[in-house]
């Protein structure tokens, strides 16, 4: 099975406190630690496991700047066979439809049986997979937490409210967005990354993909981010201060009053 996985380089929320920059045009980018979007790691692991079962290949693709190459190498160190970096100044400030139409152009240059995305990324939109499927006229299922191969079809589980699993049959080729927890992504060490350090990663531009620059990027975006701000906190929590012992004592009094200590 020829599998393509879309991956995004995103700030690691465990490593960073995300704040707004001085003029409110973006988040504060200085000192941000990046990694691959959490959901995409699960998607790549799933692709590798499918390949190991039925053969084929796994390609990882990302749209980003030169620095996005590092996430491709990371996923190749996990076991993806090939990486493609899609990069062009014309792609900056693309909205979701812009990103999806760039990915569509890349996908149409190849031949894939299965296309995987993460269920969502740092923007929390969860939009690219569904858009891509509709643009390619392929069937789609979101929030997938189980994949079984059954000939020309897949049996997939979607994780819905309450952790309930909704089982569907879906025809190949198709697009699936992957939910966390579907597998346990393998660990990649420095050594693994070193092994793929010299593998050539092709860079595709708008021209390579035959994309009209005005249809993507800033000019193609119907959805625009105007500014960033810190939401008003309303009442907010009362923050306890003092030494750890003092805070603990204050907290115990409060907890006792609320029935929080039995």
């Amino acid at each position, binding site marked *: 099975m020829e599998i393509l996985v879309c991956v995004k380089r995103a700030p690691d929320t465990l490593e960073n406190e995300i704040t707004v920059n001085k003029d409110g045009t973006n*988040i504060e980018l200085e000192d941000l630690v990046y990694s691959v979007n959490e959901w995409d790691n699960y998607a790549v692991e799933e692709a590798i496991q499918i390949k190991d079962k039925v053969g084929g290949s796994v390609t990882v693709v990302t749209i980003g700047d030169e620095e996005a190459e590092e996430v491709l190498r990371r996923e190749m160190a996990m076991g993806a066979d090939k990486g493609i970096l899609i990069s062009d100044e014309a792609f900056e400030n693309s909205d979701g439809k812009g990103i999806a139409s760039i990915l569509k152009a890349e996908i149409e240059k190849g031949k894939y049986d299965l296309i995987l995305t993460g269920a969502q990324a740092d923007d929390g939109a969860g939009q690219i997979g569904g858009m891509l499927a509709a643009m390619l006229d392929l069937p*789609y299922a979101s929030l997938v937490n189980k994949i079984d191969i059954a000939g020309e079809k897949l049996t997939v589980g979607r994780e819905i409210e*309450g952790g*309930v*699993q909704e089982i569907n049959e*879906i025809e190949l080729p198709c697009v699936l967005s992957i939910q966390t927890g579907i597998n346990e992504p393998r660990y990649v060490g420095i050594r693994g990354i070193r092994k793929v350090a010299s593998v050539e990663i092709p860079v595709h531009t708008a021209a390579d993909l035959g994309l009209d620059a005005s249809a993507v990027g800033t000019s193609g975006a*119907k959805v625009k981010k105007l500014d*960033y701000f810190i939401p008003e906190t309303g009442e907010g929590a009362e923050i306890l201060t003092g030494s750890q012992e003092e805070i603990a004592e204050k*907290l115990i009094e409060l907890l006792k009053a609320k029935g929080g*200590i039995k």
Partner: protein
Amino acid sequence: MSRQLFAYITHKNSAADDSAFELAAAAKKIDANASVTAIVTGKGEDLTKVCGQITSAFAKVWKIDGDAFAYPNAELIRAMLVKILPEKSITLLAHDTFGMDLGPGLSVKLNASFISDVVDIEGVKSDILKTIRQEYSGQVSTHVSCDITDGAVINIRPGSFKPEETSIGGEIEDKSSEAEGITAKRKYIEIIEAEIGDVDITKSEILVSVGRGIEDEENIEIAQELADAMGADVSCSRPIVDAKWLEKSRQVGTSGQTVKPKVYLALGISGSFQHLGGIKGSPFIVAVNKNAKAPIFQVADIGIVDDLLDFVPVLTEKIEELKG
């Protein structure tokens, strides 16, 4: 503005989801004078009941009854909506697991703009809709504008819009015949209920809940010791279950359990809406987080800005001292 507004209604066990009335409230913020049409798909008596329930909030209810719609398959419903929605209409969906499945693809097929997970709407000025979204689990917010000249599909975050008491008494129109003969390449098979675990956290009065800030599987013990001292149960956020450190039955949130404790201690949990969506009944919330700006502090009653790995053992010891 003479734009047509629609809301797709989800329902379960013969009752409309709460989001139905929230979508009606959100539509009002786009156009206070709009007459909004609800679209409901389903089968038989269940569907009839749901349609009846929502006439109070909508000017029109389009009812689509058919075997194919007995279970909501987003791929089928998308094809149906593309067939029946007028050009350039604005369609509101709840940003739940169904809306996430349907919205993005629907917007492509309608050639309409798409905005995901909207938490507030500021209004429309010359075909530009201004909304508020959140990023990074609510750590920052953004104003997002959307060109609605060619229509839009807007996914609304559940719980963000306050339903109004209305008695519009909308008319129900049966549109089932327009939905005949629609097919999809995805077929719904069955539902598998979530597994029941060793502890039923939905019954717990006190919960000590751990998030990714616990950092390591071994550290769960720190939380367990605190829970033992307090007479509480241990619950968690989703990443802890993904890492297989705790059972799925202990996960709090929209894709886990809905809990109603008296006291909820959030240790190293950022406060994403999917997590908070599983906490009901307004408990007394205490948050321990090393990031003073973590969104959990907006909903917590009491906050402690500290490394939980340092603070929690101190708290446990003090409680044990007290108990003697």
